[in-house]
């Protein structure tokens, strides 16, 4: 379970988060929706301890991430996987070494063959074959990079997975595919997921619960139906365009 309690964060004079609270139950998928610059990524970076809140706290499975430092924080991160917006694959390593990286570092006793077997298995889950193992990230398409990043986040079987805009910049088919992956990871591996996105279609497809972030506040929070029924002007405007398009089809 991830608990975010009254988190405030500013950079210089820019107040980005203004008292955010939310609760993500174990084994569910929680989507944070919001426009560009609404502080979504900043919020996610607090969950994994890349940023520290000015005020408030973040608790993941009983461990207060926001108060940990150094080695303890490194230890606490072992149960996380994170998919970055642009993939953040290590460009000096091959696909194999990228996906193997968390395994090699977290489970040092594994042999080379065991690691390779797990890498191949995880790549197969995201529909990628063995022929790309030796390629470098620069030789992959955008969609492939995203899938390799997904495989890398899931390879060490984390209990919490964070997705930073997983479908941004993908074609509709790959988007649908990534959505399925998120649902699949939840159902088959029982992971707790936090997804940040501005892709409304994807969000409503994968979310058990949603929150809409606006100007550092939560404008609406709850099940997809509850958020859809929200009277908040920003939420209505944000969702209206998409739902209009849906109903005209």
């Amino acid at each position, binding site marked *: 379970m991830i608990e975010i309690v009254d988190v405030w964060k500013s950079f210089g004079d820019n107040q980005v988060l203004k008292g955010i609270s939310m609760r993500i139950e174990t084994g569910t998928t929680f989507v944070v929706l919001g426009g560009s610059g609404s502080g979504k990524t900043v919020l996610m*970076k607090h969950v994994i301890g*890349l940023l520290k809140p000015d005020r408030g706290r973040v608790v993941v499975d009983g461990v207060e991430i926001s108060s940990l430092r150094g080695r303890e924080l490194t230890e606490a991160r072992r149960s996380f*996987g994170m998919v*970055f917006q642009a993939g953040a694959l290590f460009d000096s390593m091959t696909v194999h070494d990228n996906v193997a990286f968390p395994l090699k*570092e977290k489970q040092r006793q594994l042999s080379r063959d065991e690691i390779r077997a797990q890498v191949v298995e995880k790549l197969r889950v995201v529909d990628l074959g063995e022929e790309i193992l030796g390629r470098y990230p620069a030789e992959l398409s955008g969609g492939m990079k995203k899938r390799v990043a997904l495989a890398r986040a899931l390879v*060490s079987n984390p209990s919490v997975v964070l997705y930073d805009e997983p479908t941004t910049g993908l074609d509709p088919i790959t988007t649908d595919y990534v959505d399925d992956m998120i649902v699949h990871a939840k159902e088959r591996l029982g992971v707790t997921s936090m997804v940040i996105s501005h892709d409304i279609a994807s969000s409503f497809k994968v979310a058990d619960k949603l929150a809409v972030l606006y100007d550092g506040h939560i404008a609406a929070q709850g099940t997809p139906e509850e958020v859809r029924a929200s009277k908040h002007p920003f939420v209505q405007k944000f969702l209206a365009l998409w739902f209009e398009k849906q109903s005209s089809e």
Partner: protein
Amino acid sequence: MPRVKRLRAAIEDFGEMIFFAGEMLAWAFRPPFRPELVLTQMAAIGVGSTFIVATTGVFAGMVLSLQFEYAMSQLGAQGYVGGSVAVALTRELAPVFTALMIIGRSGSAITTELGTMRVTEQIDAMETMAVSPVQYLVVPRVIASVAMFPVLTMVFNALGFAGAYVMGIYVSRIPAGPFIAHTRELVVVGDILHGLGKSLVFGAAVAVITCWRGYSARGGSRGVGEGTTRAVVMSSITILVVDYAFTLISVAKP
């Protein structure tokens, strides 16, 4: 007012770099150790710089030999050319030139690589995988630099003296006997150690500065470019200042 702000930012940045160096030291002695990464960096920073350091060494030795010959022939002391070149090389020129060459070739590459990793979130990604980027990326580069700077300085010494020998004997027609004999007289082991001691310190300083400029890069490719420029300027100036301080202390008579 903006000037005060800039000064404050510079002091803050320096302080952060010192903390960064401390963090690096702490991680350097903690398992897991990664010898394979250290070897990779030794190859990149050290072996990869051999050509440029060797070339600079040969030319520096040749030019020095010709210049010393020009000056000393006026005193009738050509026999001392070899020894003078050797003292200048071992104590000053080899460690400083070697450091400046490595900064240009490998230091800039370190900043660019780490800076790109920073702005494309690869460093954040590494942190989320429970791996300390300082331990994985910075420690091997610092160890490799500290190990390879003295080695390359010795390469510079050897080839620089070889260049001086060729010029002195075959171009300036100095008899080989006195050339070698006076070199043995003038150069003591302490001179070589003095130069190598400097190069150790230079290696550590250059690695910490160039790693920090990359590690703290912000704002896309422009930020990486700025960081690289600053890394080269800052480490070059640091080398010159440290060299001066080192020399001043070593020649000061109590």
